[in-house]
Structure formats: structure tokens, C-alpha cells
């Protein structure tokens, strides 16, 4: 965490007054938020609303990772970027937008894909990680880095009219690999470009991710350490699914892990983390 402040400034008290009166947060929780740093992996449909509400709430430092640039087809769901920012790296565009909302937060943009070479050192610098990525190799990479660094991972995903959320590696609960020891066959994976997504669906999931990050960072604790939230936008229905506990034979968080450093996740998954056309053609 960042250095502790002894107290809130008068400006902070004014800005956060509506949440300071909550007994569940209070000055104590706000000071914890101000000390905490959150790494946002992906500044797209999930990362935009997530970063927006974390910045507004007064998290101390936000790391913003994205390798992509803003495109017109992003704007229906990636609400931090604007028409004038097309062509800019998303991490820079997001940081610029967030600075207008709350200039007292530190923003650290990383323009590039999270890679196995750098992910562990990066994750070690943050207290909580939010997986807002859009592909399978990155999800395994972020998971393994969080397990190796001992950080909680608030993971969201959305496609078409559905969303899912789990908090991994939190308070003795399972990690992503405990649930998914083997990656899905690449031909079964659909991305937002192919499958489509109604923009407000990642909006809803990203906001709920922000809520869980705030609950973890402020000491309230998350309810999703061994539960998955499933959301069906068509039906307007949310379900809380009880998940398995941490698995003793998990390759990365188990008792005898075989994964002790980060690997080649694109090879493991048979797909690319950065291409628009995701399946690796291996022949």
C-alpha cells in the first residue's frame, strides 16, 4: 500500500462527505482507500466504468493497462473514451478522462499488453487487481501473477447479454485455475467482436467489480470469494453460485504447484492475447 495519511484534508472531507457518513466506510475506510493501489488490466468495456468509480471514490493509485488504441466501435461501451480520442492509446485516454473527474488520484498508464515477462513485478506493486481483459491467455496470466504475488483478483467478464464476476485468490478461496484447470478449446471462445455485446452489460459488471474492489480495499470484505455472480440482462436476473473451495492439486495455488513462475500463456491457450483474430494458427 501507499504511505498512510494520518487524517483526511478538508478538501477530502468535502469531496467524500456522502460516503464518509456511512458507518461501513467512515474516515477509517476512506483512509484505507487512499492508501490502496489498484491495477486495472484492460481499459475497455469493463475497465472504463470500473476505473471511473474507483477514481471517484478516492482510491490512492490506479494502474491502467491496455495495449490497444481507441476505435469508433469501442465507443458504444467504453464510456471513458470520447470521439476526439480515437487513435490514442486507451490507457492514456482513460487516465486523461479520470484526471478531469478526480485529480487527487495517481494514475499510472501502461500502454502495452500485460506480458509474462513483466506481469509479476507489476502486480507486486498493487494491492488489488481487477481483470477487465477480453481474452483467455490474459486471464490465466493475471491469475497466476496474482497467486504468485499474493493479491486478490476481482475478475469480470461480459458477452452478448450476459456477465460473470468472481473474486479469485481471496481469503483462502479458489483461484481461476482451481475452477478452470484446462483452457477452453480455442474454437469454443467467442470475443466481443464476433459475438457482440450490449454496451451497458459490461457497464453493469464493471460497476459491480468496482464495488467489490472498494469493499476489499476499505476493509469491508467481498462476498464473492467463493461465489460467482451471474447476470442475464435479457431476463434481468442475477444469480449467486456457490463455487468449489481452493483445490489442493491446483497447478498454481495448490499444495505442490507446478507453476512457480509465469509461462507462455498464448501457447498454453492456443490463442493470442492481442490479435483481433484470436485463434493461433499453429500450422
Amino acid at each position: 500500500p501507499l504511505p498512510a495519511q494520518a487524517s483526511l484534508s478538508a478538501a477530502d472531507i468535502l469531496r467524500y462527505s456522502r460516503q464518509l457518513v456511512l458507518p461501513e466506510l467512515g474516515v477509517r475506510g476512506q483512509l484505507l482507500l487512499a492508501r490502496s493501489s489498484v491495477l486495472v488490466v484492460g481499459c475497455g468495456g469493463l475497465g472504463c466504468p470500473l476505473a471511473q468509480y474507483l477514481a471517484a471514490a478516492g482510491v490512492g493509485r490506479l494502474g491502467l493497462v491496455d495495449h490497444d488504441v481507441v476505435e469508433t466501435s469501442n465507443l458504444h461501451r467504453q464510456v471513458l473514451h470520447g470521439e476526439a480520442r480515437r487513435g490514442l492509446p486507451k490507457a492514456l485516454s482513460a487516465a486523461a478522462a479520470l484526471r478531469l473527474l478526480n485529480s487527487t488520484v495517481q494514475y499510472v498508464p501502461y500502454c502495452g499488453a500485460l506480458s509474462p515477462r513483466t506481469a509479476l513485478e507489476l502486480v507486486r506493486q498493487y494491492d488489488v487487481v481487477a481483470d477487465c481483459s477480453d481474452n483467455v491467455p490474459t486471464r490465466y496470466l493475471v491469475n497466476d501473477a496474482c497467486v504468485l504475488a499474493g493479491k486478490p483478483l476481482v475478475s469480470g467478464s461480459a458477452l452478448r447479454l450476459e456477465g460473470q464476476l468472481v473474486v479469485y485468490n481471496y481469503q483462502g478461496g479458489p483461484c481461476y485455475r482451481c475452477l478452470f484447470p484446462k483452457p477452453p478449446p480455442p474454437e469454443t471462445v467467442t470475443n466481443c467482436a464476433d459475438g457482440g455485446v450490449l454496451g451497458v452489460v459490461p457497464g453493469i459488471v464493471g460497476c459491480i467489480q468496482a464495488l467489490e474492489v472498494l469493499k476489499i480495499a476499505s476493509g469491508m470484505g467481498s462476498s464473492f470469494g467463493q461465489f460467482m455472480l451471474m447476470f442475464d440482462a435479457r431476463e434481468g436476473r442475477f444469480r449467486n453460485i456457490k463455487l468449489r473451495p481452493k483445490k489442493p492439486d491446483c497447478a498454481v495455488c495448490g499444495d505442490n504447484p507446478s507453476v512457480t513462475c509465469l509461462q507462455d500463456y498464448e501457447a498454453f491457450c492456443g490463442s493470442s492475447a492481442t490479435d483481433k483474430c484470436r485463434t493461433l494458427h499453429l500450422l
Partner: protein
Amino acid sequence: MAAPVSLQVEFGGGAELLFDGVKKHQVTLPCQPEPWDIRNLLKWIKQNLLKERPELFMQGESVRPGILVLINDADWELMGELDYKLQDQDNVLFISTLHGG
């Protein structure tokens, strides 16, 4: 002989696209000598509901990686996985995990 078992079988996260886009199926499994378990249910689904490309849903006698099986809103790992004995009125949900963002 086990009595017939009525289930609600649901598909989500895109898995429903292998079942004509229908998310909820009311299913009645016929009487058979041994009790119905998830292993038998998967065989029955493959024969009776799954229209095409079974490899996108199954791998061997189980579901393919990336599909979670939930029995009455709990992970099937908590319930015995393939060996779970189905009860009348159970809800079984097969959900494909999402990766988009």
C-alpha cells in the same frame, strides 16, 4: 427401477447456442434400472438435445474445459461431479465461461 426424474436443464454463457438458442429445458428422464446421475444425463443430453457439433459441449464423457456445471446453483464439484445422483426437480445449469470485456 428408479422412478422418472423431472429436471430443469439450463444452458448459458453461449452454451445455449448449441441447443437452438433455448436456455431453459424442462426434461423428464425415463425410468431406468440404476439411478440417474450426471454422467448418464450428459449421455442423454448428447442423444436427445444436442443438435450438432457435440465437441463444442463435451469432451469424453464429461463437459469440455470452460463449461461449469451447477447443480441447484452450486458448483458440481461440491456435489460429486459426474457421480451426483439426480433428484426430482433438480436444476442443472451448464454455463460457458465468458472472457469478453
